[in-house]
């Protein structure tokens, strides 16, 4: 079957779901909206899997290199002869991989929500928003045009906004949704300007043409963009860094990460879908999409590497101290995305040097499974405990056997314990870092130990430790909640065995990633140390955590306070932007600009008062003015005119 005959259905079916449920959900599909959402997405998922099968195993390769196929493309908004926004569908290894990730995780979340959101007043609204998100995310990953990606970028942002603020009567949810949108909007400003620069220099908005022109060292566009500079930095570096800022905002990279922990105000399945598996990796995906251009610019790659590494490390430290289980997972997401980022940063195009690229995409793939599983598991726990706080949990392994086992699998996977999925992808990332930058490798290694520690801190606190009293305990949840946990658990255990380098590599060719036993010993040892430490501290109730917190003193407190980054932002926005820019602008407008206008008006009134006095109706005074006028005119004519 030809791609173009069905491929557009993959994003359009969720869109249909959004329109259908958004318009008629409240009345006609009140009960059935969940089922409709699931069924539509099921078809999409099936089509995505079929596409992937076809692309990877049947006709994606020419001469052993995966091709970029654009089955659908039409002009949406033409600016000038060269530049236009096109809506198209790109099939290449990463977009096909993302199609699978997005549809599959979204399907799991749709199914899970059938049970989790049951009885919710705005059930159909919830599903329509989920469908909107899925549509937007699919549109993002298949984009063939840099503005198309921007358009869907904004749309995933707004779906995220709507879903974070789903419980709209909670002020905290409203604040969180606002924060998420505005912080990412700020980052998007960078993205937009980056696009404008690339479009101007490259003379096109089309991804393929753009990449072709800007990587060809002979082309006039390449010469122009690399020789031109602004403030001493080449325009290409500016453009890529600005685009990366957009990506960093969406992917919650330091220092634009502050929205992600707050975004946990949304329903937990939403966090699993948007804030763990799909939308937050959009930044990584964006860098990967433009990777051929990034790879020729060392400065921009350095920015990517260090922002990624710092985010990975910082988030892991903060995650060790948080007590809200969703926040721990949020910081963990940020940390793992940091891994993906710096993996791209240390990569190059082609062959062995491109290992980082493959590793990054591989980790994105495996992370989607185990992180969404962790969130859904956390959702199941929250569903039972009615709290997000660790202190309200404990000993739940007996009540929730399926959740317990799947959560354990996910924890092992994220910690990088063989043979679970995360081990393989993290191993590749560490290897790529080791080959190109030893400092980053060191940071990554230490962080992987921290990762194991905070994940098992979470695991032991929830499922072991001292059992807490449960109110209105109603079992582990419905079948619709257990099924996704099991499926994702199987995925988290097994997807690591996929020979990923065969399908996704920086140059479309085949990358053999041999398994280095010697290399693996150190990272696995770090992970085991982390796990053992967590076991020692959290398996049974003890005073060891308090003791450790006291021992770390200032470091613990500042990590607990998230290094005061939120406070800094608050200071800048509230004190500086509002008080020093907004307030004066409003004041100037009211008093100076408008005041001048009113002043002119009252001056006019005063002058008209004088004129009124002149027009007294007395013939004598008219005669006087007349005479004076003639004198003045006569003087002018006689002396000045000549």
């Amino acid at each position: 079957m030809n791609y173009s005959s069905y491929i557009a259905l993959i994003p359009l079916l969720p869109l249909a779901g959004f329109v259908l449920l958004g318009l008629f959900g409240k009345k006609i599909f009140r009960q059935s909206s969940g089922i409709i959402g699931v069924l539509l997405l099921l078809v999409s998922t099936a089509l995505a899997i079929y596409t992937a099968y076809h692309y990877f195993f049947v006709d994606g390769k020419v001469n052993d290199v995966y091709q970029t196929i654009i089955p659908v493309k039409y002009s949406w908004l033409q600016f000038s002869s060269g530049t236009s926004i096109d809506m198209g569908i790109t099939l290449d290894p990463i977009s096909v991989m993302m199609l699978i990730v997005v549809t599959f995780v979204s399907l799991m979340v749709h199914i899970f929500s059938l049970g989790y959101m049951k009885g919710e007043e705005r059930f159909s609204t919830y599903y329509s928003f989920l469908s909107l998100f899925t549509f937007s995310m699919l549109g993002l990953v298949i984009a063939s045009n840099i503005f198309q990606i921007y358009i869907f970028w904004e749309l995933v942002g707004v779906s995220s906004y709507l879903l974070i603020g789903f419980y709209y009567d909670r002020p905290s949810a409203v604040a969180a949704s606002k924060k998420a949108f505005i912080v990412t909007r700020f980052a998007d400003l960078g993205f937009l300007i980056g696009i404008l620069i690339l479009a101007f220099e490259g003379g096109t908005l089309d991804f393929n043409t753009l990449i072709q022109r800007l990587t060809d060292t002979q082309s006039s566009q390449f010469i122009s963009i690399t020789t031109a500079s602004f403030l001493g930095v080449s325009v290409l570096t500016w453009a890529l860094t600005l685009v990366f800022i957009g990506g960093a905002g969406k992917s919650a990279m330091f220092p634009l990460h502050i929205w992600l922990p707050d975004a946990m105000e949304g329903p937990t399945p939403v966090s699993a879908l948007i804030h763990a598996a799909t939308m937050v990796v959009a930044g990584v995906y964006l860098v990967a999409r433009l990777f051929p251009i990034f790879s020729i610019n060392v400065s921009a790659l350095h920015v990517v590497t260090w922002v990624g590494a710092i985010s990975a490390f910082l988030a892991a430290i903060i995650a060790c101290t948080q007590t809200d289980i969703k926040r721990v997972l949020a910081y963990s997401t940020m940390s793992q995305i940091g891994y993906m980022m710096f993996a791209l940063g240390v990569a190059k195009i082609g062959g062995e040097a491109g290992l980082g690229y493959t590793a990054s995409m591989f980790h994105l793939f495996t992370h989607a499974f185990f992180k969404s599983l962790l969130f859904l598991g956390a959702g199941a726990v929250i569903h039972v405990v009615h709290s997000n706080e660790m202190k309200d949990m404990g000993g739940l392994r007996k009540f929730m056997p399926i959740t317990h086992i799947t959560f354990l699998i996910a924890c092992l996977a994220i910690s990088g314990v063989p043979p679970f999925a995360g081990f393989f992808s993290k191993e590749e990332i560490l290897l790529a870092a080791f080959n190109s930058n030893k400092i980053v490798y060191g940071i990554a290694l230490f962080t992987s130990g921290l990762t194991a520690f905070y994940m098992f801190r979470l695991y032991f606190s929830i499922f072991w430790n001292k059992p807490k009293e449960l109110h209105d305990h109603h079992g582990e949840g419905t079948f619709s909640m257990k099924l996704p946990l099991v499926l994702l658990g199987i995925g988290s255990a097994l997807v690591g065995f996929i020979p990923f380098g065969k399908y996704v590599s920086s140059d479309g060719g085949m990358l053999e990633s041999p398994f280095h036993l010697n290399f693996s010993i150190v990272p696995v040892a770090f992970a085991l140390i982390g796990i053992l430490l967590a076991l020692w501290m959290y398996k049974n109730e003890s005073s060891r955590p308090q003791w450790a917190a006291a021992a770390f003193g200032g470091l613990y407190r500042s990590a607990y306070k998230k290094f005061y980054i939120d406070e800094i932002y608050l200071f800048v926005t509230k004190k500086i932007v509002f008080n020093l820019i907004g307030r004066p602008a409003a004041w100037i407008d009211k008093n100076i600009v408008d005041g001048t206008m009113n002043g002119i008006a009252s001056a006019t009134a005063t002058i008209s008062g004088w004129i009124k006095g002149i027009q007294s109706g007395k013939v004598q005074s008219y005669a006087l003015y007349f005479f004076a006028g003639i004198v003045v005119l006569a003087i002018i004519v006689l002396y000045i005119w000549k």
Partner: protein
Amino acid sequence: MNLNLLLLIPLLTAVAILCCKGLKQVRTVSFIGTALQLVLSFVLLYWYWQERSAGNNAAFLFENNFTWYAPLHINYHIGVDGISVAMILLTSFVVFAGVLISWKIEKLSKEFFFLLLFLSVGAYGFFISLDLFTLFFFLELAVIPKFLLIGIWGSGKKEYSAMKLALMLMGGSALVFVGLAGLFFNTNTGDGSHTFDIIQIAQMHIPVAAQKLFFPFAFIGFGIFGALFPFHTWVPDGHSSAPTAASMFLAGISMKLGGYGCLRVATYLMPDAAHQYSWIIIVLSCIAILYGAFATMMQTDLKYINAYSSVSHCGFVLLGIGMLTRTAITGAVMQMVSHGLMTALFFACIGMIYDRTHTRQMAQLGGLLKVMPFISTVFVIAGLCSLGLPGFSGFVAEITVFMGSWEHAELFYKITTIIACASIVVTAVYILRAVGKAIMGPLASKEYSLLPDAGWNEKLAAGLLIIGIVAIGVAPFWLNHLVGPGAEAIMKNISNVAIIK
């Protein structure tokens, strides 16, 4: 197609309203009249496309020309290009929605609807005029009724606002008049006589000195209508005191008269001056965009928020005009249409909320989504359009302006574009603040829990405007095709100048 119909229908409707008895008859007549006009504007669009696809490449279609007053060379000359068609579509949407929103107005309803229809005659006439005098005549028609609408049916400090608006707009018209008269006396049809005819003037070359002298008059004059900084201060007071339908008309159409005039008269007819003064226009509009946005951030009254944000959004119109590229001018026109629909929707929504809660203060509102889901959803949609979300018209227009501005290679244009781009963040801040306070959050007062949601008329009005917004946002190519050639004709005049230099 005979363009006179566009004037005849609203005029007849207005006269018919005067003969009606009672609110029911009045609103039925207004409904039918404005609905007919809406249909007619689509018919116009259809025929316009028919002509264009049949290969008619004339600058203006459906021309109609007869002498009005020969001694002064005043002709009643009308015709449309793509830009005018877009503006006429916008006007018919907004006026129809305005009638629906004012459905329950009881105070002097006959006079109210009469004035509204009368205003629309002015707007339609303005958009189809090809003669400067006729154009000015219709511009004036569209000023006086506003004074009455605000003064009689307004709220708050309405006398002050009405007077302020009337004085500033009158001042604007006076400047426009000087500009037009100056233009007129510098025309030369070959036999020594002058002309008001736009097509003829566009083809002749007005002396550069005269252009430089009269361009500011015309541009600032029209600019006052279009909220040019620092002459925008009538906007916040005027809008917030006006009754809902008048606000919709004022922001949706009146401000577009200014943008259209700047484009059609000032820029099109005085290209040399436009070229020379463009940097001033760009600087002023950048100030309006960003400073307007920051001033919006501090407002607490919903109508003030929308009014100030209109200053910011209309800045994009003037920025696009000032940038003088085909893409930017297309974007400016798109922004006029987009902002017209969006702001009308916003004002309609604020009006609906005010009718029910009797407050527009954000602090007193909250949680409306629970009691008025329809109105709240519309409010959110209008907000999202305002902050330039893809899928709605605002995004398309803004992006086109940005792309058009960025076509210049010089640093000055890049920096001003970045300043304009920066407003997308500030816009998000004030929109989400308003949505968060008024629509989301806990219900502010128990009394609100019994308030009714939108009625059929309000739903129809909002629905229509949303259809317009989404039709542009999802499929912008039709508007691009409609407006593009018109922008190109204007650019042809400009680039002739640029080449001569």
